[in-house]
């Protein structure tokens, strides 16, 4: 018996989210009195997993796994779960993990709870708390099956250091041919993604036009942040759909979310509610976002943002 955690990598390196799910797996393993095994596919820095409580790493190195296929990857995780006799399988909330988890659930005959935000409140019955109603509420869910799959919500559990010396074991699962073939990937490799970002800077219709996004990008640059936008902005074509955050766009769960010229429609707030600290800059003191924010500046973005950029640059230079 063990807890298996699928630790994702990108370009050969484990993703930040991998250490969060490893931390979560350690918490579950402690509750169950067992150990943590991580599964890493084509990743080099797996020894770092030991810092987050992983006891053993199954390392898979295979060029047939260079491009992601949910079905093929799910089958690899399944074989690892069976080999380790895993009672609980932990995955992240990345696009890829959310893609493979339902396939894995069917093949392992396992109940799956997604968007889980805390360690289980009980292990018999196995009970977890998850985000639901697009962050407007939490749902307490019980998983009834022998094998359980938990998808951990991004940036909800955090990193917990827990030193263990992880042993490494080569794992060579059977790999099927994919029937969904990746033909092209269009991904900016030099930019932090909304899913991975600690800080997200987001602009709304208050910015008046796409030509004014230079200051949003500059502010994001200073903070090492990802850029995002509200729904009207993406509907108007000012910014790409991939930047749209909110109920029908991408969810945001960053440490800091800065909303500039966004009034805060209920659908937008729902999508960004999981962010820990929210700052609003808006000319309209009555904008609903001020009720949902931690810090606010009532003022014109065109004067506030350039000043904020200069002051943050000075602040960063001092640090």
């Amino acid at each position, binding site marked *: 018996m063990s807890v298996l955690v699928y630790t994702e990598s990108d370009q050969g390196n484990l993703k930040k989210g991998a250490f969060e799910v490893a931390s979560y797996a350690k918490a579950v393993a402690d509750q169950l009195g067992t150990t943590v095994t991580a599964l890493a596919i084509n990743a080099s820095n797996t020894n770092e997993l030991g810092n987050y409580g992983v006891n053993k790493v199954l390392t898979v190195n295979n060029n047939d796994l260079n491009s992601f296929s949910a079905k093929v990857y799910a089958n690899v995780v399944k074989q690892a779960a069976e080999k380790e006799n895993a009672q609980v399988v932990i995955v992240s909330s990345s*696009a890829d993990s959310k893609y493979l988890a339902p396939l894995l659930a069917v093949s392992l005959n396992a109940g799956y709870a997604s968007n889980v935000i805390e360690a289980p409140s009980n292990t018999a019955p196995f*009970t977890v708390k998850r985000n639901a109603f697009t*962050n407007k509420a939490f749902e307490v869910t*019980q998983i*009834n099956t022998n094998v359980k799959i938990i998808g951990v919500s991004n940036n909800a559990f955090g990193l917990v250091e827990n030193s263990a010396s992880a042993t490494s074991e080569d794992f060579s699962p059977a790999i099927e041919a994919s029937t969904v073939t990746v*033909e092209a990937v*269009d991904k900016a490799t030099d930019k932090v993604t909304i899913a991975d970002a600690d800080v997200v800077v987001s602009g709304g219709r208050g910015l008046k036009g796409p030509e004014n996004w230079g200051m949003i990008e500059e502010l994001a640059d200073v903070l090492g942040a990802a850029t995002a936008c509200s729904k009207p902005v993406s509907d108007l074509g000012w910014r790409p759909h991939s930047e749209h955050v909110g109920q029908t766009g991408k969810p945001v769960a960053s440490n800091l979310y800065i909303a500039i010229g966004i009034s805060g429609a209920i659908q937008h707030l729902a999508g960004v509610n999981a962010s*820990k600290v929210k700052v609003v800059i808006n000319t309209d003191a009555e904008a609903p976002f001020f009720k949902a924010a931690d810090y*606010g500046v009532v003022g014109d973005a065109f004067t506030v943002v350039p000043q904020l950029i200069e*002051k943050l640059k000075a602040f960063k230079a001092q640090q």
Partner: protein
Amino acid sequence: MNILVCISHVPDTTSKINFSENNTKFDTNGVQFVINPNDEFGLTRAMWFKEKQGAKVTVVNVGGAETEPTLRKALAIGADAAIRVNAAATDGFSVAKQLAKVATDGGYDLIIAGRESIDYNGGMVPGMLAALLDANFVNNCIGLDVDGTTAKATREIDGGKETVATSLPLVVGGQKGLVEESDLRIPNMRGIMMARQKPLTVVDGVETTDQTTSVSFEKPAPKGAVKLVAEDNLDELISLLHNEAKVI
């Protein structure tokens, strides 16, 4: 092409979310129900396949009679037929099982579901359905073209998108991007009248065992008041973010 669009009946995006019966049930009092937005993008793409490629479009929902107005709306938008599986939608796996039965019986080539419902946000039904049917599966789908039995799809990935080639039978987890927001259709009077004539078949559910059980709900703790910083005092904002919030 024979298309099945899975429709979830969900509270409107502007709904206030409340719970009843000691926080164990969603309180439907005063709540307007709609087609799940992610499903509506898929339905609208299916309409395109109907108009351009002669596809037949059936919509399906798992739920009680109260969900029928939502199915009628899908018919008014232009679907040809509707099926309601008369079973409670209590767990993603059970819903996927019900849909798998409908999909197998109807011999559909393409099944479009939303990537997730905006109420429970489980995000599991499309993938589980694909696995149960042993069909190909593309999640977070933002573009789809079908030519004969081959399909080209665009999938949103973290930080970008990718193009994939696959074949029917195919299950798609759809979202905004499959069609644009401006392509969504508001049913007109003719559509609403015609929807009344279209078949809405009620079928019994199959036996399933729930893999998960919803125990209770909680609402987030009320938020403290916002701390306002004057626009000529941004140093204070930086100091608060650094020293108090500790996020920069």
